[in-house]
């Protein structure tokens, strides 16, 4: 019997496995790719690890640092989990298939770190011909930066989030022409350092626009773009066509939680990931979650941190026969907070809260009224996750709930 089966060998899963091993647990790490690292090996740009490793690394380098510290962890790649069986709170099974066949292994706890999936063209309302040349940003990145294949020559990118912008740079560097980045919202989605890419390569950014149609015979030939008003409604008569052979969709990520929702784990519609307590335990005791399966992060550093937290949760669970906190205080979303995790805190330990705002604001106070905590911030943006430490002592000031809200600085 394993103490922990970690599902997913990306940064969250590897960090969880390493921490769990350090805490003396018997760990099995499963990943369905034939290499570890999740999406990191294809994220060849720098900007990773400044918090976690205190040095700036590329994605593959970040992954390598974790990979070379897995001694004592049983690792299986090409191992796809088919099912989680929650036999009882203290005994679970993980069923996976691998080149060795289908296996069903017993474990005390599970750390679920299966990452996220990308939204595809048909999920964002793009219609038209069934043609080749339509990729998600991650697919295009895998093609280019793992397999060395150029997806196309004249490219339109949907979405100005970090992944879309980073791909715009990669395409431009490799000699493709990025004809436009199309963003639905009236502001760009990515971090400022990535928005610079547009200027570096003279790439036009269309804010408040969307791609609605793709046309071509066999391959993408042109895409139809339309302007939207402040309620994101299409403005009639504003349509125009852009000639392109490739459409790349970078329209956000959705936590990959199917294996969890199959067994009744409660999902928070605003994060898309499970509802968790301050041990990152889901609504099923002994099943923990970390990384982009918990909520979409913008820094891998926080993903790895969540992996460690989940491992510490698993250790406590095994030692005490459960996470035995008696009183849970709910974290409530107030003004301009779109999502927050964890959802319940105990006041028995310090916690990191991860939150995102709905819309950009300047000169604000991030406030927790029930406990009298106020943090001034010059700016908040949906693209930049807020990460706030609540101390156990502060949490105990509250009775049943703690609201998190962002209001104007008075």
């Amino acid at each position, binding site marked *: 019997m394993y103490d922990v089966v970690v599902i997913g060998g990306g940064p969250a899963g590897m960090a969880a496995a390493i921490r769990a091993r350090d805490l003396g647990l018997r760990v099995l790490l499963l990943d369905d790719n034939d*290499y570890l690292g999740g999406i990191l*090996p294809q994220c*060849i*740009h*720098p900007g990773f690890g400044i918090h976690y490793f205190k040095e700036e*690394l*590329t994605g*593959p*380098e970040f992954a*390598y640092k974790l990979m070379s510290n897995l001694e004592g962890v049983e690792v299986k790649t090409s191992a796809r989990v088919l099912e989680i069986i929650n036999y009882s709170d203290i005994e679970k099974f993980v069923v996976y298939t691998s080149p060795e066949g289908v296996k069903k292994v017993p474990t005390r706890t599970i750390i679920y770190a299966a990452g996220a999936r990308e939204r595809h063209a048909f999920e964002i309302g793009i219609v038209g011909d069934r043609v080749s040349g339509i990729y998600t940003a991650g697919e295009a990145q895998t093609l*280019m*930066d*793992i*397999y*060395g294949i150029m997806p196309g020559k004249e490219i339109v990118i949907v979405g100005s989030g970090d992944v879309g912008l980073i791909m715009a740079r990669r395409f431009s*560097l*490799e*000699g493709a022409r990025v004809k436009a980045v199309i963003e639905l919202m009236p502001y760009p989605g990515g*971090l*400022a*350092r990535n*928005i*610079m890419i547009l200027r*570096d390569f003279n790439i036009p950014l269309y804010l408040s626009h969307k791609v609605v149609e793709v046309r071509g015979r066999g391959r993408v030939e042109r895409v139809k773009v339309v302007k939207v008003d402040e309620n994101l409604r299409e403005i009639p008569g504003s349509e125009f066509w852009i000639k392109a052979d490739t459409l790349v969709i970078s329209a956000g990520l959705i936590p990959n939680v199917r294996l969890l929702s199959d067994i009744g784990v409660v999902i928070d519609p605003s994060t898309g990931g499970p509802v968790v307590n301050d041990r990152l335990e889901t609504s099923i005791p002994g099943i923990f979650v970390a990384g982009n399966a918990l909520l979409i992060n913008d820094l891998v550093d926080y993903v790895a941190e969540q992996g460690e937290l989940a491992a510490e949760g698993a250790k406590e669970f095994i030692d005490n026969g459960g996470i035995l906190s008696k009183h849970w205080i709910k974290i409530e979303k107030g003004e301009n907070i779109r999502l927050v995790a964890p959802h319940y805190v105990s006041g028995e330990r310090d916690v990191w809260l991860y939150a995102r705002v709905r819309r950009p604001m300047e000169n604000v106070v991030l406030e927790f009224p029930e406990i009298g905590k106020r943090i001034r911030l*010059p*700016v908040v943006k949906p693209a*930049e996750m807020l990460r706030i430490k609540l101390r156990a002592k502060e949490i105990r000031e509250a009775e049943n709930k703690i609201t998190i809200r962002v209001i104007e600085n008075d």
Partner: protein
Amino acid sequence: MTKVYRFTCIVCPLSCTIEVEMEGGKIKDIKGYTCPRGKEWAIEEVINPKRVVMSVVPVEGGKLPTVSVKTERPIPKDKIPELMSMLAKIKVKAPVKIGDVIAEFEGVKIIATREA
């Protein structure tokens, strides 16, 4: 002739909008920054913008068909196309270790960031 460059400063999360006014290759005015670090960064951005460049090069006999590489230091932005066409001609043989020097470009090492 004056030319105005507008940047969002990326040195810290405050993201100030900095405007640099240039006249005849000289800085005439610079405004919008909140701290000296931002000012310095904006000047560098106008006078001599530099970037770390990353790419992949094909690898023979490796686990994956390519190995990812980066410049060891930022290089001048206008040298990037030259660097990219040099990289386009390179092929390496496995095994490659992280940190291996794959090539050199005007004194800047191109190093592998992935194993192959």
